[in-house]
C-alpha cells in the first residue's frame, strides 16, 4: 500500500520535471518567432553522418537541429543557432531530437539567386561551425539512469558577411544586444564578437585576443544572447570563418532578403525551382513550424499533467480500496480472535479484570498486529515499491535535462512510462500512522465485543 503514495510522489516528480523542461522550451520558442518578414533561409538538408568538428575536405563540421516530434529529419531549416539542436536537443533531448549536420554548400553555385531572380534585395551567405567534445554521461531521471553520448558544444562559429549591406541587415545577421565594446563593422577581419558565455569560456574581454582553431582573433565586443540557443555563438567575418575552418568557398546557409514582403512566397518558389536540393524557409514557414513545435510542447505538457492527474485519481481509488480491505481484515481477524478466546476473556473477567482492561488488551493486540503488518509492509515496500507502483499506477514519462549546448549523439535522454517510487522517511512515518489508525479502527468493535463477554461463559465453556 505504501507503494501507491510512493508512486504518486514519483509520478508527480516526473510530471514536474517534464513540465519545467517543457515550460522553458516553450518560452524559448516564443522568443524566436520575432523575425524579419522578408527573410528567406536556404540550406541543404542536413546529413547525419557524424558530429563534431572534423571538417571533411571542402566541408564543415556544422550541425543543425532536428525538428521536434521525433522525426529527426533536421528539416526545420531555421537559421542555425536560433533553434539549434544544441539547445533544444539538450533540453528535451533524446533520439527523437537528434540534430543533423548541415551539408556545406559551394557558395559559387548559388550566385544565380542574386543575379537572376528579381525582387531580391540581398543574399547573405553564412557559415556555421561548431567546436565541441564528445562526452559520455550518465543521465539520472527520477531514479532511472542510463549512459548516453553527447556532443558538448563549447562554441559555435558564425561567419557572416561584413559587406556594405551590413547596415541594412545588421539586426538580422548580427546580435543586437552588445553589452561591452562594439559590434562587428563592415570589413572587420581578424575580429570576433563573443557571447557572454564565450567570454567566460575563453576568459577574454574586449581588446583581448583569443585563439580560435589555432588562429588569433581580437575581441571587439561582447553581447548578451537573446535566447538560450544563442549562448555559445561567436560572430566573425565570413571569410575569416571560411579560412579558420578550412572551408574556403563554402557556406552552410544563405539568407535571402526580398525587396518587399509581398514577394517572399514567389521568390521562395523560384529559389526552390532553381535549386530543388535546397530547403527554403520563409517567415511564414518559420512561424508555422514554431507554432507547431510550441503546440507540440504544449500537448506534451498537457499530457504530462493529465497523466499526473490520472495517477492521483487512480491512487485515491486504490488507497480507498486498500484502506477498506485492511480495516475489514483487521476487523475479521480480531473478531475471530475474540471468538476463539471467549473462554480466556471470560476467565480474565472472572478473576477480576475490568471491562476496560479487557477492551484495552484487545485494542493493543489489534494495534500491535497492525504495527507488525506495517513493518512487514514497509520492508516489502522498500524493495518492491518501484515494481508495485508501476503495476498499480499509470506511468508518466519525460525527457531528461541536459546541460546547455549538449547534443545527443547516441542513446536517448527520453525516459518513457517511468515512475521510480522510493520510500521517503515521511512515507514510512505515514505508513506506520495509517497502520496504527487502521488497527485501532478495526479493533474497536472486536474489543468492545470482548469486553461484553460475560464471565459466566468461562464457567460453562467446555
Amino acid at each position, binding site marked *: 500500500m505504501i507503494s501507491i503514495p510512493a508512486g504518486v510522489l514519483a509520478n508527480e516528480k516526473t510530471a514536474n520535471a517534464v513540465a519545467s523542461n517543457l515550460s522553458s522550451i516553450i518560452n524559448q520558442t516564443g522568443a524566436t518567432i520575432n523575425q524579419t518578414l522578408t527573410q528567406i533561409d536556404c540550406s541543404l538538408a542536413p546529413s547525419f553522418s557524424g558530429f563534431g568538428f572534423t571538417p571533411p575536405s571542402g566541408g564543415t563540421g556544422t550541425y543543425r537541429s532536428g525538428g521536434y516530434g521525433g522525426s529527426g529529419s533536421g528539416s526545420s531549416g531555421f537559421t542555425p543557432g536560433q533553434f539549434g539542436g544544441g539547445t533544444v536537443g539538450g533540453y528535451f533531448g533524446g533520439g527523437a531530437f537528434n540534430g543533423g549536420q548541415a551539408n556545406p554548400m559551394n557558395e559559387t553555385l548559388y550566385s544565380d539567386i542574386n543575379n537572376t531572380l528579381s525582387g531580391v534585395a540581398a543574399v547573405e551567405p553564412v557559415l556555421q561551425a561548431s567546436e565541441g567534445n564528445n562526452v559520455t554521461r550518465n543521465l539520472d531521471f527520477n531514479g532511472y539512469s542510463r549512459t548516453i553520448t553527447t556532443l558538448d558544444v563549447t562554441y559555435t562559429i558564425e561567419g557572416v558577411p561584413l559587406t556594405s549591406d551590413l547596415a541594412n541587415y545588421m539586426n538580422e545577421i548580427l546580435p543586437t544586444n552588445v553589452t561591452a565594446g562594439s559590434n562587428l563593422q563592415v570589413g572587420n577581419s581578424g575580429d570576433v564578437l563573443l557571447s557572454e558565455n564565450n567570454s567566460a569560456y575563453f576568459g577574454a574581454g574586449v581588446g583581448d585576443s583569443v585563439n580560435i582553431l589555432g588562429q588569433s582573433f581580437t575581441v571587439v565586443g561582447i553581447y548578451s544572447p537573446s535566447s538560450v540557443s544563442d549562448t555559445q555563438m561567436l560572430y566573425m567575418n565570413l571569410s575569416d570563418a571560411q579560412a579558420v575552418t578550412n572551408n574556403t568557398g563554402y557556406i552552410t546557409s544563405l539568407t535571402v532578403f526580398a525587396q518587399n514582403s509581398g514577394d517572399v512566397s514567389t521568390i521562395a518558389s523560384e529559389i526552390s525551382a532553381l535549386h530543388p536540393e535546397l530547403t527554403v524557409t520563409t517567415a511564414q514557414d518559420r512561424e508555422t513550424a514554431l507554432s507547431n513545435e510550441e503546440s507540440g510542447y504544449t500537448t506534451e505538457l498537457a499530457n504530462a499533467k493529465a497523466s499526473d492527474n490520472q495517477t492521483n485519481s487512480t491512487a485515491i481509488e486504490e488507497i480507498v480500496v486498500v484502506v477498506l480491505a485492511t480495516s475489514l481484515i483487521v476487523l475479521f481477524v480480531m473478531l475471530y480472535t475474540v471468538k476463539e478466546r471467549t*473462554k*480466556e476473556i*471470560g*476467565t*480474565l*473477567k*472472572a*478473576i*477480576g*479484570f*475490568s*471491562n476496560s*482492561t479487557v477492551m484495552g488488551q484487545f485494542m493493543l493486540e489489534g494495534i500491535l498486529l497492525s504495527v507488525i503488518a506495517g513493518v512487514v509492509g514497509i520492508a516489502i515496500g522498500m524493495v518492491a515499491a518501484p515494481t508495485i507502483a508501476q503495476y498499480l499506477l499509470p506511468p508518466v514519462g519525460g525527457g531528461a535535462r541536459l546541460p546547455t549546448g549538449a547534443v545527443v549523439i547516441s542513446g536517448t535522454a527520453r525516459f518513457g512510462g517511468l515512475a521510480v517510487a522510493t520510500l521517503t522517511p515521511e512515507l514510512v512515518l505515514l505508513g506506520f500512522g495509517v497502520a496504527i489508525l487502521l488497527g485501532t479502527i478495526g479493533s474497536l468493535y472486536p474489543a468492545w465485543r470482548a469486553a461484553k463477554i*460475560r*464471565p*459466566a461463559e*468461562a*464457567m*460453562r*465453556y*467446555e
Partner: protein
Amino acid sequence: MSKTALQSANPVPPPGKPVLQLENLTKTYTLGKHDVPALSNLNLTVNAGEFVAIMGPSGSGKTTLLNVIGCIDKPTKGKVLLDGIDATALPENQLYKIRRDKMGFIFQTFNLLPYLNARENVELPMEGQGKSKSEQKQRASELLAMVGLSGREEHRPQRLSAGEQQRVAIARALANNPAIILADEPTGNLDSQNKQGIIKLLANLNLTQGTTIIMVTHDSQAARNTERMLLLKDGKIAKEMQGLHANKKNQICPHCGSRIQIKDEICPACKKPVYASDDLF
C-alpha cells in the same frame, strides 16, 4: 506496599463470622412468555473457614447460585452480602473489584492461559492490585509451593498434567487472599487419583489456611469429603448434611468416633483413613 499492609487492606473475616449471606435470593429467567424460576427465596449463611459443597440435579440452580455468589449474575430479588458488602447494590463497573479482591474462581476446565507459564498465570489476578512485579512473583512462587508445584513455575499449561493444571488454577484463585473460593466442578475433568489429590488439597487449605470454599459438584464422593453438603432442588436448599471433613475438623474419627489430631490421615485407634478416600474415590 508491604505484605502486611496488603493483607490488612484485604482482610479475611475471622473464623465463625459470616462471610456470605444470601437473603431471600430469587432469580427468574424469562424464556419467551414463561418465567422460569432458577432460585426462589433462598437463604444461606456461610461462615468464614467453612468448606461447603453444593449438590443437586441438573437444572436445580447450582450454576445460577454460584454465578450470583460470584457477582457474575444479578439476582431478580434478594441480597448477596459478601464479607458485609451488598454486592447487589454495586454497579457493574465496581463488581470486577469484588471478583478480584473477594473471590477466587476454580473452573472445571482449569482455564489457564496457554501462553503464560504457571507462575504468570498465578500472577494474573494480582495485576490490577498495584503490587510490584517482584512482589507478584514472590507470592506466586509461594502459592505454587503451597499447592505442591515447586520447581514447575516456568512450565506452560500444556507441559503440566490435568491435576497439576488444576493446582495452578487453585494457586491463582488464592492469589489475592480472597474471602471465598468458588469452585465449579473442580474435579469434573480429572481421573480418580487426581480427583483425590485436588479434594485433599482443598481440604488441607481449608484446614491449615482457614480458606472458605464453596464447591459446586455432581460428584457425591467429592462432596462427602467436604464439611457441609447442601442439596439444591427447585431453586431452594432442600437438604443439608454434614460431610466427613467436619469430623476431621472436629478431630473425631468418622469410623470409630475416637479423638484424632488435625494432622492425622489415619485414625490412631481404628487405623482407618480419616478421609476414607479409598472407598470414597
